[in-house]
């Protein structure tokens, strides 16, 4: 259901699917490969308020921890517990293994926040 070309990206290797005022967030295939085998995922509680730039989730591999940031202020409206039960699904398909969904206070604020399209994201990996 997630075509990488339809998603937006952050420089911190998160992908975002923006639908109205709701944003679904995961980590990119590149981030998953860099982390290695994911063994633990911590997700926020539904209903939690988050501020832009706050660490909202953690994706931990055998060697390191990837922090997932909130791209905008808002409220957590869904979390993907399948990923908590099977962290390795992030290595399987990072674009299906979404982490949490945020209802953002001001959807317009996302546009000014330096989000990348797939080509721009891939280009900055090369740099």
């Amino acid at each position: 259901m997630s075509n990488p070309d339809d998603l937006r990206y952050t420089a911190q290797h998160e992908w975002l699917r923006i639908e109205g005022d709701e944003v679904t967030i995961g980590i990119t295939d590149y981030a998953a490969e860099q982390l290695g085998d994911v063994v633990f995922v911590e997700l926020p509680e539904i209903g939690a308020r988050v501020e832009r730039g706050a660490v909202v989730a953690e994706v931990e591999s055998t060697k390191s921890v990837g922090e997932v940031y909130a791209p905008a202020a808002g409220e957590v409206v869904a979390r993907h517990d399948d990923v908590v039960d099977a962290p390795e699904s992030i290595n399987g398909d990072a674009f299906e293994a979404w982490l949490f969904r945020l209802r953002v206070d001001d959807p317009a604020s996302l546009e000014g926040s330096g989000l990348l399209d797939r080509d721009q994201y891939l280009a900055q990996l090369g740099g």
Partner: protein
Amino acid sequence: MSELSRSPLHALHEAAGAQFTEFAGWSMPLRFGSELAEHRAVRETAGIFDLSHMGQLRAVGPDAGRMLDHALAGRISQLEPGRAKYTLLLAPDGGILDDLIVYAQAADDFLIVANASNRGTVSAELSQRARDFEVVVRDESDDAALIAVQGPASRAVLGAVTGLDAARLDDLRSYRAASIPFGDGELFAARTGYTGEDGFELYMPAEDAERVWTAITDAGEPLGLVRCGLAARDSLRLEAGMPLYGHELTREVLPQQAGLDRVVALDKPGGFVGDEAVRKGPPEGARVLVGLHVEGRRAARAGSPVRHGDREIGEVTSGMLSPTLGMAIALAYVDPRFAVTGTNLEVGIRSSLAAASVCELPFYLRKAAA
């Protein structure tokens, strides 16, 4: 920064799809695929590792054994040819400069294997400590390769590639080493490793490395042999409770603090560099190395604080979610008053605290061979 050193096997690793990492000035495989699958292969079948980044030095001459007795913490002169010993290079103040394996290849010829990060220190210290002895210390690292085959099927893999039967390979008992036939030549094989499993470490000139690696992977893959990177090497050694230089062993730590009293031969005639400091021991209350079981599935990492009540009493040096045990484990230096097995402590993992308890080492102990 100067360019990273490359193993003589670099091109083969690239072709096999390795993801590389920088380690001690080297570009070495971090993983070839899934590091958990690599870890599991070593516990269940076998894995092959390129360890060509390790320092390989040699002390040759009539005084080689005596010089190493003076320079190192162990009694090296008593080592019969064909035996290996785990030992330490100490500073005069007793601090650990490196942990080493020394192989006696002849009465006057010793191979010394050092950590890649400490190769320069070991070379300089040994040369300096050798000045009053009739011995030559050479750093042969640039011309040498090291390949490890580890895991319960490692004997079968080596048998398949060399044609030696199990009984012949078992002449090579733990911490023994010998030249074994390999193809139309031979190589120096040791029953040593850093994984907690049965296994072999194979020493050879750099120009032979590709031929040996390819022969072993060709013969071994049908037996379940898997190429492994440094990620699996680290997780395997940690489960086996083995210290890693730069984490558990440092210049600031005396052997007793790291639980390595047994490798220090204080009764050696003539003494050795650092012996007085070791005999005196660390100051009262100096932290000691312990194993921790940590609750939950989040891993404590190097630098995580260890707490008892509202006091910080130690620090984690290595930690992870153990793939074999399915629990979070860590090595930590703690105040000796809290080092007793079963002591309940807490570990700070990023913004929260996790309950932890002091446990026996190693975390993982393989079942005795059949």
